[in-house]
């Protein structure tokens, strides 16, 4: 009668939708997998019982031994399959993270660059109107502002592009070369004298760390250009014990780190560094410049060459 009940329930199920999922639900929880291996339907447990029973009550039939051999074959096949599936799932997860990051960057690109370009266009339009009115001096000033904004936009647009390239492993220069190139551009665009002193190699950073470092430092460069009023900017790296420190500092007017001015993106920088397990320090005193440094832990232990520089 229970059998009939099962059939009836199966039939009744079809009266409502089964609610097929629109996407796969993912992995089965580990404790359920353990239940399979140690539970009443577990093939190894079944054969273990058979072997123990057979050992106590010989002889063991040949079909049990054949079953054991097949079980071993099954185990070998299963290990191979599970390994392959795990690898594939890992790749899918990485791909998913990458796509998510790309989406974020596109969103950011839209938010920042589009607004800047729109601002430039408005300024240019106003400059043209002013020039037609005959106020040449004011028009020139507006053109100058538009040019400055265009340079900023150019600088900004390269940020997400560089990060995307790093994420996709397409960035030919390593982190060190990349930052040097950015320094050159920075000096060209903003007229701040730059100095690089990368004593510790940044090439040992993995792609995710490299992407985070680039993102944080481009943000820090931007802060120097926009807010610091500095004449000089310094890019430095050192290996202190097992910690790789990369630092950018300026000789600008600094700020109170207890009450940082809005718009510096410090929270974002800290979060971005934290995503790859690094720490971010912001050291600043009013009138004595600012230093932003990222510390990557668990590096190869090399004697400290930096000593009192920090």
């Amino acid at each position, binding site marked *: *009668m229970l059998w009939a*009940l099962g059939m009836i*329930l199966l039939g009744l199920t079809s009266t409502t939708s089964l609610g097929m999922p629109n996407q*796969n639900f*993912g*992995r*089965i929880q580990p404790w359920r997998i353990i239940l399979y291996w140690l539970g009443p339907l577990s093939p190894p447990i079944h054969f273990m019982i058979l072997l123990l029973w057979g050992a106590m009550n010989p002889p063991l039939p040949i079909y*049990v031994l054949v*079953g054991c051999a097949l079980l071993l074959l099954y185990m070998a096949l299963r290990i191979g399959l599970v390994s392959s599936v795990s690898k594939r799932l890992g790749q899918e997860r990485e791909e998913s993270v990458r796509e998510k990051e790309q989406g974020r960057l596109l969103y950011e690109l839209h938010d920042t660059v589009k607004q800047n370009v729109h601002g430039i266009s408005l300024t240019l339009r106003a400059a043209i109107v002013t020039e037609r009115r005959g106020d040449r001096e004011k028009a020139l000033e507006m053109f100058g502002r538009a040019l400055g904004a265009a340079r900023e936009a150019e600088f900004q647009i390269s940020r997400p592009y560089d990060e995307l390239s790093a994420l996709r492993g397409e960035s030919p220069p390593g982190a060190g070369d990349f930052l040097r190139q950015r320094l050159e551009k920075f000096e060209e665009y903003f007229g701040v004298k730059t100095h690089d002193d990368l004593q510790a190699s940044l090439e040992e950073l993995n792609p995710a760390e490299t992407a985070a470092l680039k993102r944080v430092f481009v943000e820090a460069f931007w802060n120097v250009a926009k807010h610091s009023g500095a004449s000089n900017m310094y890019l430095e790296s050192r290996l202190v014990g097992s910690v790789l420190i990369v630092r950018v500092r300026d000789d600008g007017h600094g700020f109170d780190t207890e009450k940082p001015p809005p718009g510096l993106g410090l929270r974002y920088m800290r979060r971005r560094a934290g995503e790859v397990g690094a720490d971010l320090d912001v050291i600043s005193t009013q009138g004595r410049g600012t230093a932003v440094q990222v510390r990557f832990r668990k590096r190869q232990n090399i004697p400290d060459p930096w000593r009192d520089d920090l």
Partner: protein
Amino acid sequence: MQGSDAGRLRDPRVPRIPPVAVLALWALGALVFAVLPQGSEAKSVIATVFSLSAAAFAAIALLGATPHAEGHERAFLQLMGWGMVSRFAGNALWSTSHLFGFGVGTLVAPQDVAYAISYPLLVGAMLHLVALVTRRITLVTALDAGAVMLSVGTLAWYFVLGPVAADAGLGGAREAVVTLSQPVCDAALLFLGLVVASSRVKPRFSMFLIGVSSRCCSPTPLTSDFAPSGPTRSATGQRCCGLSA
């Protein structure tokens, strides 16, 4: 993937079957079955009538719902529905062969063919469901189901069916295959049902899973003509499997 009308009745044109009425009918039958004395003819008739009507009900309901379903749900209902049709045919042929005595002594009885068609369809339906509710483990699950079949079959034969066969003086390959196939295939279905249940299943699956589990765990009154004393002894292996699960 196609969408589904999740959360509501499939289509207003599909006649709604009142579950309470159907379950009440089953409960009534079960009560009468329990009250009747062991070994009575009426008990056997009730069991046969109920098993046939339940299989027919499941087949008609599943296939009747198929045209109104879409995508993967449709494929699943089709596989399950045709599996049930084969199952019903197997049960009907088994009953008829025992009533009129045909097919006895032939190498392959018609009901065996029907069962042989039914199980791959049911296992296919369950694997389809596993593929829908889990991610990339269908092949591993199929392999596991095969291992479960192997171990349950060996266990059932060693402890239960082998000794029964020796006592009855039957050792033919056909009898062995027929006797073993049902508990072994039901164990695979049960395992696949548990895999589906282990995923993050929506409540709508619950009734279906209870149905699969009940079907697999219960000893069917129509198994094989292996044991002379009828279904009770030949389904012992199946009982073991059901109890263990």
